[in-house]
């Protein structure tokens, strides 16, 4: 069965709202069907790229996504805008510039924004 390209956007700070934790939980859930899932951490959710930010639940979701080989990317501009130290972003999290994000979104068959 052909995999469907699905992009999940996490956009909100993990410390103010549960939206980003739910974005990651849904991203894991989406792998239960033939979906090729990509998670993009945008705006203040870029902080999720740093291990430990947001607490144990979020870290558990990120670890699971890594085990499932789901691509997790962080918006390059957001890292700069929100003062996220790039050196603390682990290598398995891809840093994407605006052109690459645009390409990823254009190629997606479904985009789910949190």
């Amino acid at each position, binding site marked *: 069965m052909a995999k*469907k390209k*699905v992009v999940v956007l996490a956009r909100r700070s993990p410390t103010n709202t*549960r*939206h980003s934790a*739910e974005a990651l*939980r*849904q991203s*894991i*859930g*989406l*792998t*239960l*069907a*033939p*979906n090729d899932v990509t998670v993009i951490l945008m705006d203040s959710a870029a902080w999720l790229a740093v291990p430990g930010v947001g607490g144990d639940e979020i870290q558990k979701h990120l670890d699971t996504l890594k085990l499932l080989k789901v691509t997790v990317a962080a918006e390059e501009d957001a890292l700069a805008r929100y003062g996220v130290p790039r050196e603390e972003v682990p290598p398995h999290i891809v840093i994407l510039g605006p052109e690459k994000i645009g390409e990823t979104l254009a190629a997606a068959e*479904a*985009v*789910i*924004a*949190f």
Partner: protein
Amino acid sequence: MTEDNDDAIIYREEMKLAIELMTGVGAEDVHTVKRIAEAALRQQHEVAIFLMGDGVYHFHRLKDLAHKGVRVTMCTQNAYERKVDPGDDALSGSQYDWAHIVHDADRVIVFG
């Protein structure tokens, strides 16, 4: 399927529409979701609605859509967290349901 009229050829294609509703009672999104679903049904499209987050509070409002043929499912975990009891097993679901709904849909709309 196409049909001709005097001015144009009209293309009709039955589509599968997936709608996710995550906002609660303070937002008006549920009304928009209802109107979109009803319009889609009139056009003979298939509609599936998944309630997540605060969207689970709306399952009572959307039950009549279920009677009209819309697949209405909600995330049981979010319902449990909010002490929302669907009282109807047909509405209980999980991210597994949404994964398949998304995979099968021609279009996905999210209200969050």
